[in-house]
């Protein structure tokens, strides 16, 4: 337990170092996560709208889950990308894309067909149906995917230290210089950041849910089993 008291002392003594490291960790997180969103969200939404490639869109997240994050980083280290910011970012993107894509696909694909028919009957164009009916109804699932992906990315970001990334993971990887109290301090802050990110996405998920749907779907889709494969 002494290690924990020392860790809090370390946090007090090294607030500047920890603050800078935390910012670098968040920068990596933001880079990986936002690139993944830009890639995965449009693909998932379009495939869901067309009801095409369902088998692929659903199984891609299972494949993603089976990919060990450290192994992905290891493979990328052996490519010409080498050590550095981009290796880490690419690894984060690879891990985050599948969950976002699958949830966006399932969310849009499972929108009640009668709802879509009604919208079409009202004279809505395909674009209007997508943006005014399908996406709003699918938002809870889409955000559940974003939340799970955010957690994956946040969990993997500290591993970046082993691939030349900056941030809190570096303190953990350098126990020789920071001692056990530094390692514990960095771990505590990483855990705190994970709770922060998860909390923010939980709130986003809540606000993104159209009021009429609140408390219905949002309840059963929590992280970890955004899509229960049976």
């Amino acid at each position, binding site marked *: 337990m002494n290690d924990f008291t020392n860790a809090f002392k370390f946090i007090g003594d090294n607030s500047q170092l920890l603050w800078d490291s935390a910012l670098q960790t968040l920068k990596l997180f933001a880079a990986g996560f936002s690139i993944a969103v830009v890639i995965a969200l449009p693909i998932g939404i379009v495939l869901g709208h067309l009801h095409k490639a369902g088998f692929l869109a659903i199984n891609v997240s299972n494949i993603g889950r089976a990919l060990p994050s*450290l192994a992905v980083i290891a493979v990328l280290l052996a490519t010409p990308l080498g050590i550095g910011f981009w290796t880490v970012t690419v690894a984060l993107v690879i891990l985050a894309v599948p969950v976002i894509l699958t949830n966006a696909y399932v969310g849009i694909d499972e929108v009640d067909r009668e709802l879509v028919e009604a919208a079409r009957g009202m004279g809505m164009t395909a674009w209007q149906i997508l943006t005014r009916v399908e996406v709003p109804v699918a938002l809870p699932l889409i955000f559940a995917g974003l939340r799970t992906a955010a957690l994956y990315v946040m969990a993997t970001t500290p591993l970046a230290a082993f691939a030349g990334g900056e941030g809190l993971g570096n303190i953990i990887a350098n126990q020789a210089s920071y001692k056990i109290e530094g390692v514990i301090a960095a771990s505590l802050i990483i855990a705190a950041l994970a709770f922060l990110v998860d909390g923010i996405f939980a709130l986003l998920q809540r606000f993104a849910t159209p009021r009429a749907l609140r408390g219905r779907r949002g309840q059963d889709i929590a992280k970890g089993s955004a899509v229960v494969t049976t």
Partner: protein
Amino acid sequence: MIALIAQAGPVIPDFGTGSSCVRNNDTFCWDWFKDNWDTAFGPRLVEHIELTLIAIGIGCAIAFACALLAYRFSRVELPFVSVSAFFYTIPSLALFQLLVPISGLTRLTVEIALVSYTLLILFRNMLIGLRGVPDDVREAARGMGLTRRQSLLRVELPLALPAILAGVQIATVTVISLATVAAFVVDEGLGSPIFDAINRGTFKTELIAAAVLAIGLGFIAYALIALLQRLLTPWARARNA
């Protein structure tokens, strides 16, 4: 002069005596992989499978007991989900380190962390599976004179099996993935050669070999459990056909 160049280059095992492939740190050197299988990879693979099986076994036992309890008394659900979600949210590298002052640099530390990551997934899927049993099926079992226990064992659990196995499947690949990180705490599993290769100056052959083994193990485990699910629930196949 040659010595100087050697020092400046990456620290590669057998530097100077190994094959030209190893010395140049080419993408993948089969000869090195074959020569080191018995020491660097085979035992690591076995350890990795051990770590995974222990974690899944203990995780299933805890989650199953709690899920049955929550199925009977729904008040148990929220506390269990809250506690397991708490652990699930902590990034693995941090959780391993936070446990070190408590349980040391031991396999116990690794297993505590790995088990805690399985609980949320397993518990949730078990409960979803059990609650997914239609009410009329449950009533029919009652009507046939089955006791509550018989109904659970012979009717409800078999019907919940697909969801339960789906949970085991996800938990298993998750543990295989996280067990690679465990090597940072205990020198075991396939993460060990990965960290070793990084310390040697990104020795590519070792990196790729360990990573491919870890990824392959995840996929094989995934496929095996999918197969098990098919074999154990023949009625699901009949319905789909």
